[in-house]
């Protein structure tokens, strides 16, 4: 890795000032598990790494059953899944946080970092989309909020300007009779990049699906929100037939490429299978909360 400087700002303002001063010659880091690898591989030519881990707002992890979850952008995965209240409220998020990398990676890697790295295969983004997450972004001009499904704009690309940073992610409080789940397909049991992944959430009203959201990983240039799949379920009974219809819509929405991890046909098939399985698990979880 070539010479690079390192800064540890103590406030969001200080961090934004550094980003504004250095433009695309600086990047912010959370756990560093992606950016340090990318720096060694020469993907970035930077003068400055801005470490966000000493900024209070980026370390915030607060859950309130009325308000929801505020997840600071630099909070490591293990802090999320070791929190009993958060694990009970958002089991779907825990599914994703506990399968990123291995134990060593989870000790450093942040969900906010996974979001900002913005790969199509990012394991946390589909479930965050399904859970209706919002990104809290700060730049020199002030704050803005972006829905998670609008955050990524291409492989490794997102809506952040060079002088903006993700400060936190907000998840709405889970409503009654709701359930969510993320699962991915990989050839080994752990430590791999999704061939395809599916995050879903459902809200039930007795045996009927009140609303549902479905999002996919690794099958489009960005994590993909399949609005039509969720809408097809809304108002329908939580039956095999309606789940199958949503799974078919997820498969149809996927636009994967063929690469070393899988072919287009295989990935589209996986979208159908994983959506069906994930919806069934989310529905079971929703019933358990009834």
């Amino acid at each position: 890795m070539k010479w690079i400087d390192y800064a540890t700002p103590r406030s969001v303002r200080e961090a934004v000032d550094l980003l504004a001063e250095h433009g695309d010659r600086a990047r912010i880091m959370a756990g560093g598990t992606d950016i340090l690898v990318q720096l060694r591989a020469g993907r970035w030519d930077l003068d400055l790494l801005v470490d966000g881990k000493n900024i209070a707002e980026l370390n915030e992890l607060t859950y309130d059953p009325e308000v929801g979850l505020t997840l600071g952008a630099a909070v490591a995965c293990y802090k999320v899944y070791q929190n009993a209240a958060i694990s009970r409220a958002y089991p779907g998020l825990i599914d994703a946080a506990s399968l990123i990398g291995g134990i060593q990676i989870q000790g450093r890697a942040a969900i906010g970092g996974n979001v900002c790295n913005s790969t199509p295969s990012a394991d946390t983004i589909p479930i965050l989309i399904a859970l209706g997450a919002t990104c809290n972004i700060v730049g020199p001009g002030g704050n803005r909020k972006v829905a998670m499904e609008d955050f990524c704009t291409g492989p490794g690309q997102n809506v952040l300007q060079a002088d903006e940073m993700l400060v936190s992610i907000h998840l709405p409080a889970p409503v009654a009779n709701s359930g969510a789940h993320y699962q991915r397909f990989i050839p080994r049991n752990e430590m791999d990049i999704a061939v395809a992944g599916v995050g879903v959430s459902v809200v039930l009203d007795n045996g009927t699906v009140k609303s549902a959201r479905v999002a996919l990983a690794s099958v489009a240039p960005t994590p993909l929100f399949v609005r039509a799949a969720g809408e097809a379920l809304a108002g329908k009974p939580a039956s095999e037939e309606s789940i199958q219809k949503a799974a078919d819509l997820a498969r149809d929405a996927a636009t994967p490429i063929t690469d070393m991890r899988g072919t287009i046909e295989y990935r589209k098939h996986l979208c159908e299978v994983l959506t069906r399985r994930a919806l069934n698990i989310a529905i079971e979880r929703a019933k358990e909360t009834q």
Partner: protein
Amino acid sequence: MPAKTYVRSIINREHVDFLCEPRQSLLECLRDVVGLTGTKEGCNDGNCGACTVEFDGRIVTSCLVLGVEAEGKEITTIEGVAIGSTLHPIQQAFLENAALQCGICTPGFIVATKALLEAEPNPSEYRIRFWLANNLCRCTGYDKIVRAVMGAAGKMQAAKA
């Protein structure tokens, strides 16, 4: 060229100060600056786990931590696992179960195992394999490592009883 940074840390229960460049990984600092070469470099991108150390109470791959991030932090490397000349029960179990061949991955496996058994004294085989998924071994086929971890867990439990 940016100046070197003065870093104050606690490594293996001792205060250790060192100078490093901001671009240097904790792994480089441990091996090339501090002179603790027990921690090994494998892939240098977080996949193989050979460079696993305990950092601020969690195991991490030290290739994915910057040396400058060690300011004020406590670190335990493989050199800090034995107490004096007495091997840790995990080290003893790795020897007794022949859980190493070339040995390059072993420091990482032992540091990772120590963190596991401190958090979960009696893990299942499934849990051991899951916990150690971030550590690669190209010699043993893992079975002897898993047996060593189970053996160490048993002995550590018995010693406590």
